[in-house]
């Protein structure tokens, strides 16, 4: 019975103590007509069989451990130091519950407190919470905070069209029955100046992404100026890896900073679990949804940590709570905490610099290719836009088949004006050899030199 330890003798003794004859008798309250339905499930499996089957199934996936990957668009292949996983596999961390009982949860609590600190420092904010489900849901919750900050008297929220399309979609899903009007991103072509012009006295919040979905570093001067003039909150969606090198969103003038922390020690894992982070200036601390850990003392005057600002949460505030969130992404926050501590001040910057140099090298080389052009109108970090001579899906099929390369993101899917444009991502994980292989591959694909039998890689 897999993970159930009872012997027959145990069961009989327990039934006797309860005063019933059989386990079935424990379920008399369930309407008889519906009691004990058949479950059509496969036969039970042993651990050995599970491992064999699931391992075999996993081989039907192309993974970044076997292939070179140049795909980003919100999920990134960054280096994860070995110790991160070793810490996550400590049962004391991963088999603990939410730290409601501080006396027996100081480990989780202090780790979250350190995580909050590092996220605050990276983003240039005063405080951060213990995390959200992912970057997209963190943005959706930022909208709630901005509405509350204006006591629901403002209805407009402006989104830059260069925020990740999934994030904008999720925010709309969250607020579909509420009085929020989203604008700014419909045409897909609004510039920062256009967005600044849209800000008015009814605008609760404007959100931009930094670096944006296309990898570019935009100038927010006009937006921040207009937002200040109208009392509009500025939310910056950011990549924490970039923040180790670039000016912090706080320095640029953000009131709220959210983003995806997956790049901080969390594997891509086909889209989750990830780590939404949420940081604010002091005046908004009491409006953040979700868990927050604070420092205090215990009965003996020792330093101790505890979840604080609890009354705002769903289990106490019920229908008045600003969000129904219960969990954070506890273990993912721990992963990021261990990762950032191990990388430290120097390592964090080093990773960002490697991304910068390698991405720029790749962009320069691809820019030289006949038929391709690279958008260099604005500075970029680790991602950039390449206009291709043929459909991106065709190029990607050839890259994977002939070169063992997972190609970039097809921007035509989300932006009608960006047909045949590919978003390429280069991180510290891509060696020069891989980049050269990508360049050679693109050249060959454009030239139509490839034939079905040709394989240039060894997978």
């Amino acid at each position: 019975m897999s993970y159930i330890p009872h012997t027959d003798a145990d069961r009989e003794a327990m039934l006797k103590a309860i005063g019933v004859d059989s386990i079935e008798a424990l379920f008399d309250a369930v309407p008889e007509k519906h009691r004990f339905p058949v479950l059509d499930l496969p036969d039970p499996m042993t651990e050995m069989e599970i491992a064999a089957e699931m391992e075999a199934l996993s081989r039907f996936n192309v993974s970044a451990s076997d292939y070179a990957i140049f795909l980003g668009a919100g999920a990134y292949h960054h280096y994860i130091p070995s110790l991160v996983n070793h810490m996550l596999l400590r049962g004391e961390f991963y088999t603990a519950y939410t730290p409601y009982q501080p006396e027996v949860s100081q480990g989780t609590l202090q780790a979250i407190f350190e995580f909050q600190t590092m996220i605050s420092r990276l983003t240039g904010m005063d405080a951060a919470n213990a995390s959200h489900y992912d970057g997209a849901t963190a943005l959706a919750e930022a909208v709630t905070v901005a509405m509350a900050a204006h006591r629901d008297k403002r209805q407009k929220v402006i989104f830059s069209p260069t925020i990740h399309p999934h994030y904008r979609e999720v925010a709309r899903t969250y607020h579909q029955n509420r009085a929020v009007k989203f604008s700014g991103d419909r045409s897909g072509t609004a510039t920062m100046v256009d967005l600044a012009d849209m800000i008015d006295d009814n605008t609760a919040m404007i959100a931009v992404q930094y670096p944006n979905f296309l990898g570019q570093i935009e100038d927010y001067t006009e937006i921040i100026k207009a937002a200040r003039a109208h009392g509009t909150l500025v939310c910056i969606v950011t990549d924490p890896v970039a923040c180790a090198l670039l000016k912090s969103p706080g320095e640029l003038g953000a009131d709220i900073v959210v983003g995806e922390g997956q790049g901080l020690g969390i594997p891509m894992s086909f889209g989750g679990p990830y780590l939404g982070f949420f940081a604010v200036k002091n005046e908004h601390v009491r409006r953040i949804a979700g868990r927050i850990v604070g420092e205090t003392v215990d009965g003996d005057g020792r330093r101790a940590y505890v979840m604080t600002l609890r009354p705002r949460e769903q289990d106490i505030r019920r229908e008045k709570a600003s969000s129904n969130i219960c969990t954070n992404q506890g273990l993912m926050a721990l992963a990021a905490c261990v990762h950032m501590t191990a990388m430290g001040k120097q390592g964090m910057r080093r990773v960002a610099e490697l991304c910068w140099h390698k991405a720029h090298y790749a962009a320069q080389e691809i820019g030289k290719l006949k038929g391709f052009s690279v958008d260099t109108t604005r500075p970029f970090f680790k991602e950039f836009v390449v206009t291709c001579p043929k459909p991106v899906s065709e190029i990607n099929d050839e890259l994977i088949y002939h070169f063992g390369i997972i190609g970039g993101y097809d921007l035509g899917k989300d932006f009608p004006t960006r047909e045949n444009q590919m978003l390429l991502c280069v991180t510290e994980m891509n060696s020069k050899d891989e980049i050269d292989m990508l360049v050679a591959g693109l050249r060959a694909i454009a030239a139509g030199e490839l034939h079905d039998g040709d394989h240039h890689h060894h997978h």
Partner: protein
Amino acid sequence: MENSTPQPLEKTSYELSQPGRQGIRLPDPDVPLTDIPADLCRTDLDFPEMGELDVVRHFIKLSQFNYSIDKGFYPLGSCTMKYNPKINEDMARLPGYAHVHPLQSQGTTQGALALMYRLQEWLCEISGFDAVSIQPAAGAHGEFAGILMIRKYHIDRGDVKRTKILVPDSAHGTNPATTSMAGLQAIELPSDKNGDVDLDVLRKACEQHKEELAGMMITVPSTLGVFEEHIVEIIKIVHEAGGLMYMDGANMNALLGVAKPGELGFDVMHYNLHKTFSTPHGGGGPGSGPVVCNEKLAPFRPGPVVEIIEEPQDEDDAPLYGWVMPDKSIGRLKAFHGNFGMHVRAYAYISAYGSDLPKVTHYAVLNANYIRARLKGTYLMPFDRMCGHELVIEGHWPDKAPGVHALDISKRLMDYNFHPPTNYFPLIVPEALLIEPTETESKEVLDSFIEAMLKIAEEAQNNPDLLHSAPHITPVKRVDEVKAAKDLVLCCRPTHIESAEAQ
């Protein structure tokens, strides 16, 4: 003055930091360098600097301050703290799952899609529903999806006035919070003296709000740990008033192979994979909260979901799986596809039990009733009847031990090396202690817990101070929550202030 600074159990990484140290070294660039414009860059990053061994010791030390399932019994009601099988962790870390990018093409992700598809099918089979989306990232997220689906269903039929959701007063706080978050209004229903929904009150509420009733949310078995005897009748009453029925699936560990919510007549439900299917709680997440529903609500599911795009030509071939957006979807609830790592673990867990899955519920309910039988007489029980997978007792003796509260019992349990039960929930039971043992605990463990509970009941009368001052053996004593909330300190102090003070 030094005595006034609170001593830490373990210094923070910021306090352990020494300028110049580095944990992980990274390679030099192997490409020609490109100038990084200084006006784009930050000048400083206030981050800790520690050697690798110091980092490891720091986190190991922190881990030792935690209680966990791996360490001992964790009878936290409504949380289902069962054993988290180790093999599940290994499976989630296979490179073919862990290092797959969510935006890779269909053709390069058939293994992951097949796994998600099979999990979807199993979740439908277990619950008796027709359709599912495994995108929601947690139970509360799945609940949110379900309520948005109900609302959109009514809107789609032109029934736009339906905005009210009935919620029993025994419900999890997420239920009313979800309702508000979805832009609807929660109407609280008082329970009867047995903790059940009062059918007359329900009928009246349905009559009063007939035009505006969107639906009802209810937990089965209820948060009091008992199976609602009139559930089929409740569902009928709400349906007749034009409302849909939402089941909070938090307590599914009491229903596996015992009843299928879809067959009982529910329209939609969420699972908590981290409860019922043993994906680890991780110190507060990540979870996973698939939403399952009947045909009526299927078009409104969040998406995309995995479907078979092309049936196999041959019996031996695999079908082609792909992403499909349900046609009237409430939209996307999360970037990418959900907490896939949790899907992998739940898949491994369900594979282990397969058709034996009902045994999980049988033994979970056996364990809870065993504790109930043995604590009866010593502890007050608000409802004297068979319980589901958890039981609620009252943690006080107003006559015999005035001044002792449920919280004191909880804290004292820590001295016996047990994690406390859930305190003060459900709200409608005074001094509630909600105990959920789960099926993975042996009789010996339950016996030692029961002994501790009986001992504490004695102490409450003979030596109540022992309870008031508990816990005594934990890394810290009871903490000052008022100070934490009043003098908010949410970050380590900046290192440059530390060093300035040191000078």
